């Protein structure tokens, strides 16, 4: 029993090692993508957003306001315009992303003890422009308000941002992308292998000695082969990449592994099940690549998970990355310990179990005698010959 498992396992490793597609999707892609993405978001946040000022007041107070906004790190005043329309012309030419307009009676109103409003127009092509310009304007007015009132506030407030010190984009998106890459590349690699098997109607060149009683061994060998391949890859993607780009890594190494084990297993079985849908080598690429974007959103990283409609919440419960991503962020970015990710961990085991049954079933089906002795069609035979 063990020797046969051994033979299947070794031959599987050999076949995978020779497959250039598997090389691309399971090695090059997990090596390269994290670097590309982290580099892309390395600036973390947008600074010095070009903004136009319309100063209709033109007094010491309004000039002070403008000077302070310009001095803030997020906004750069690029021009002064006569009126709002003139300011919006800059937005039309995409030379600026916002207009800050100070009303004619700004100083007079404030000196008279009346409220005065500064109007901020922001181009909504990106939420980050909105955030930068509005935050700077608000901060400056709060600062000046405190001075104008010349009295202390009854209660002081402070904001403390946790787990993403720079409030940056990389700090929030990259951990999710890293975990997702593991799942997506596993699906691609396994699907590629299964599509090839189905195309060639053989299990790793061992079709003569394999029959349906070997289903367990084949499932076990595939799982083992991919798990073996993904241990170093997981260490690289989740351990080395965040360090290289100094992202938050406050998780405990062993706790991370305890958490990642069911995740990798769930991904492998998920991949095996989906892979069984592939009639050809190339099918899986069309099936799997696009899912990265919906999977990312369903994990609750961008759109808050608490506000996901119930239907999609249930839908997302069968996808390993949903729990993998939240669990990893909690452990690694937020310094949580295993008890805090118990729900995710348990759900990953349940998923692993469920997907294992489906995967096992699909292997049995593939090894079932009828489909096994089915003659390859001429077309497939031709392809087999071509590829040899």
């Amino acid at each position, binding site marked *: 029993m063990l020797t046969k498992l051994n033979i299947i396992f070794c031959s599987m490793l050999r076949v995978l090692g020779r497959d*250039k*597609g598997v090389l691309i999707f399971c090695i090059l892609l997990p090596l390269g993508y994290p670097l590309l*993405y982290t580099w*892309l*978001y*390395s*600036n973390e*946040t*947008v600074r010095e957003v070009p903004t136009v000022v319309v100063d209709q007041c033109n007094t010491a107070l309004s000039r002070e306001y403008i000077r302070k906004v310009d001095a803030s790190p997020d906004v750069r005043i690029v021009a002064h315009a006569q009126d709002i329309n003139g300011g919006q012309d800059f*937005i*039309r030419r*995409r030379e600026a992303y916002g207009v800050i307009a100070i009303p004619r009676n700004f100083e007079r109103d*404030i000196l008279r003890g*009346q*409220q*005065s409003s*500064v*109007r*901020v*127009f922001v181009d*909504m092509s*990106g*939420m*980050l*422009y*909105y*955030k930068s310009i509005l935050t700077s*304007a608000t901060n400056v*007015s709060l600062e000046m*308000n405190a001075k104008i*009132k010349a009295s*202390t506030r*009854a*209660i*002081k*407030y402070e*904001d403390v941002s*946790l*787990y993403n010190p720079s409030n940056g984009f990389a700090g*929030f998106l990259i*951990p999710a992308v890293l975990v997702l890459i593991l799942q997506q590349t596993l699906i691609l690699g396994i699907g590629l292998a299964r599509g090839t098997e189905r195309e060639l109607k053989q299990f790793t060149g061992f079709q003569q000695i394999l029959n349906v009683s070997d289903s367990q061994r084949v499932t076990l060998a595939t799982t083992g082969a991919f798990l073996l391949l993904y241990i170093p890859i997981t260490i690289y993607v989740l351990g080395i990449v965040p360090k290289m780009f100094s992202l938050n890594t406050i998780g405990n190494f062993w706790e991370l592994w305890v958490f990642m084990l069911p995740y990798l297993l769930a991904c492998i079985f998920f991949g095996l099940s989906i892979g069984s849908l592939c009639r050809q080598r*190339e099918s899986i690429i*069309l099936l799997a690549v*696009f899912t990265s*974007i*919906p999977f990312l*959103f369903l994990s609750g990283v*961008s*759109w808050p*998970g*608490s506000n996901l*409609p119930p239907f*999609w919440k249930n839908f997302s419960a069968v996808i390993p990355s949903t729990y993998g991503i939240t669990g990893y962020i909690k452990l690694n*970015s*937020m310094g949580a310990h295993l008890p*805090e990710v118990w*729900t995710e961990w348990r759900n990953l085991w349940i998923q692993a179990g469920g997907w294992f049954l489906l995967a096992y079933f699909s292997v049995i089906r593939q090894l079932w005698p009828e489909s096994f002795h089915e003659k390859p069609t001429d077309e497939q035979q*031709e*392809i087999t010959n*071509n590829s040899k």
Partner: protein
Amino acid sequence: MLEILKREIYALAHEPLMWFCMIVAPLFCVVLFTSMMEEGLPENLPLGVVDLDNSSTSRSLQRNLDAFQMVNITESYTDVREARKAMQRGDIYGFYYIPKGLQRKANRQEQPTVSFYMNYSFIVAGSLLYKDQRTMSELASGAAIRTALFARGATNNQALAYIQPIVVESHPIGNPWLNYNIYLSNTLLPGMLMLFIFMVTVYSFSMEQKRGTADELLRMAGGNMFRAVSAKMFVHFLVWFTVGTIMVVWFYEILLFPCHCGMPVMWAAMLLLILASQAMGVFMFSALPTPRMALSFASLWGVLSFSICGMSFPLMAQPAPLQAMAWFFPLRHYFLLYVNCALDGYPMLNAWPHVVCLLLFVVLAILLTPRLKYALQHYAYEA
């Protein structure tokens, strides 16, 4: 020509994968994203509070904070440790910490500090909370003063002017509700369509090569590669354009996303995106005529488009080489056309370079047809 059309229709109709990638999956994504973010702006984000003071001041403070639409104080904790654990479990996105002695200190004018701890590893939730956070705190702390001012006989306006002399009034152009559905779906979903177009176009040429039917295709076109490609792509185009039309109608006629330019202009932009994406797909296979490489190229370009188009993270904050590369991504041009026409309401002419760029993709694909012909005739399928 007609023969090629028939052949292609037959090929697409007999492959379940094509039905899935051309119709089922793109429309599924449209439903998924637009219904997922139906709320527009997430409301009632769960927050916690740690009230060590437990006085009438601290309770009135809590009530004031809870009244804001964006947040919902769901839980109170006895100490910070417990609140932090709840945050790590994901029960809450942030919590207020009200220290002991708040009321006493406030009455003595000693300025106690109330802290707000916010989880920024889920940025949207964090940013949304931050948006009003500063003003919120200002107003809440002002509430105490306002009571005093009213007692002295100040009018509401006088009290407001005293608490907040300068107000910032925000006017988000085109999307005043800060609606995330409008913000994301408008670019994300055409982007998904583009990704499918890349994939299917490359796949369909890969299959010609794999099945050894490229010669047959060329023969049917009388040896004219341009004719063969355009006939093949025309069949695909009809499907894509139907899906694209459904998307545009869904956005601007049914969900009523803001569209200053009117639906037909965005329809035209969608047409340009589809043509450019198909051309890009042809280019990908011409440049790397092995299925493995061309599909990898399509995946890389397609997935990268979502980041490089600048819809979520502005292009100006990305590294310089990527800023230059952005010109080679159809989605970048579509995104800028959408911002220009639908969101800001300027005529398409104002963004003419992007129209030209989208058309240049088509020219690029046409220029490469001889290369494609050579590739299909001479490169054998390689697994």
